[in-house]
């Protein structure tokens, strides 16, 4: 899967958790939690959403790598390349 498709998938999952957020204006390097006003529980749901959308298993220990949009895409790409 290409970076652009991955980005779209991440946006789709985020859009279901924080539908009010202006996803187009996200700073891709900044913290998703801070920018989108999502809390720990939302973030857990984000991980679950990524799993059901992309079939990627995210070990809880890797969660910190997914704190920004860029981080998410890089992590998910590395996972899909490895599988």
């Amino acid at each position, binding site marked *: 899967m290409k970076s652009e498709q991955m980005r779209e998938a991440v946006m789709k999952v985020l*859009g*279901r958790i*924080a*539908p*009010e*957020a202006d996803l187009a204006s996200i700073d891709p390097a900044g*913290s998703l*939690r801070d920018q989108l*006003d*999502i*809390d*720990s*529980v*939302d*973030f*857990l*749901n984000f991980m679950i959403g990524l799993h059901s959308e992309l079939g990627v298993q995210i070990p*809880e*220990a890797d*969660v*910190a790598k997914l704190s920004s949009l860029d981080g998410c895409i890089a992590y998910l790409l590395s996972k899909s390349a490895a599988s």
Partner: protein
Amino acid sequence: MALEIIEKKLADLPVVPNMVDYERVRADFKWETAGRELEGLPGGRGLNIAHEAVDRHSRGPRHDHLALRWLGKQGEVSDFSYGDLLELSSRFANVLKGLGVEKGDRIFALCSRVPELYIAALGTLKNIGVFCPLFSAFGPEPIQERLSIGEGRVLVTTEALYKRRKIEELRKSLPRLEHVLLIGNKGPSLPGTLSYHALMAEASAHFEIPPTDPEDMALLHFTSGTTGRPKGAIHVHQAVIAHYVTGKYVLDYHPEDIFWCTSDPGWVTGTSYGIIAPLAHGITSIVDEGEFDAERWYRILQNEKVTVWYTAPTAVRMMMKVGKETARKFDYRNLRFIASVGEPLNPEAVFWGLEAFGLPIHDNWWQTETGGIMIANYPAMNIKPGSMGKPLPGIEAAIVHRHKDGTVQVVEEPNIQGDLALRPGWPSIFRGYLRDEKRYRDCFAGGWYITGDLARRDPEGYFWFIGRADDVIKSAGHLIGPFEVESALMEHPAVAEAGVIGKPDPVIGEMVKAFVSLKSGYGPSESLQMEILGFARTRLGPAVAPREIEFRDSVPKTRSGKIMRRLLKARELGLPEGDISTLESEE
């Protein structure tokens, strides 16, 4: 079911606990005597929380002792000795005085766990103002309601939250809110706001705490009921006696302890135990600005050499999901005692603590209204996993049945379910709900404070939580009033009716779920579902907004129009029809 008891042997404990013999301490305990362990204002001028938490230590041998270590999100560290806190809290008290803020005025804070929050709290108490911290994940509506009920005169917040929570807009409906102090703004001030830092720099570092009556109002904590607006529970300065006593007997503070309470001051635990109790004992308290992250937390426990840790079941369950292998990668040789509060800790979690940290997790029970821990598992007392423990020395707890005529019958027989009730009279019991005398009075019957929780007491005197007596939702340890959520949903143009329940969730206890019926002309669709969800989040913030919305043709109500949340919940849980019909006729 055979119950496994975790036995405590004094010889196994690394430090002799402050309370070795529960029954004996309980038999001898008197609040008047306990209060003498605090200093009181010099010259017999009363009792002030900030004096006990800061001034008395900073004017003695603890002047240079580390009081607060702040850990920033990005790895920053700031240390504050008791001497530093003396200076900074005095400056903030002078800032308030300079603004003409008087005794009893309410000072609200809306920010993440930054050092300024702690300084504002202590400075407010010095100036005999009333400190009211709001959780930073609240949206504009919960903020507006609380500022309005609490008649906030000053708000301390950040520029980012001022904009995101639309405070400027809210101020039009908050005529009493005179001053907004912004933390961390670098550029020119936003119109109508003041710079916290500029005011602090100009203020004097010397402040003498005025005479303070132990019954003077000190803290205002909001909590939620089933119906109506949020309730502002009033606490007074002598609540510090209960904070001190519970720090001593429940959290077992010793002079060289490094204590970490993970709760946010926006919730009562984060104020009573994240600010006051450890400082009242002159020990070191860790404050972490970051959100939950298992590995970060383990690293803090290890690197900061935390000895006593106070956390919450939701966090424990999240750590359990990560797995004990991760937890075991770190070194907890300094950690001596783990406690948890917020909702009942399931026995698996108590045992998980043993596997992950080599220590059981000690559950305890209290609520916003009680101001401090009331029922607990103590270091030297055997644990019955799943039980909240036994009442604190000085606290009389009972299971009661409340009759319709207002009388109360104490249930002496063990293992009978009833209302958990406490005999009023301890120093940190709430003194009222601000401007809501009726709801305050309704909490008391037959000489008891009725907590709203259902419980049972076993033959050995351990209490076991059963559930809430009302429809209040307990999510991630925090109470959420369904009415507040329903009211916000009803403001959406497509929503005709809304019923909100707590849906059981394995990690957070209960998840806020809304059932919504639509006005004619609107049809259910995923995009409308998302629109309403986003609408609710914008108004209520992520901590209060529903996480799930389901459309229904109608929302069940009683003949008098009351939403039957219990029926919605029964249906959600797939309870048998028989149960449902009983519920319906009862309503």
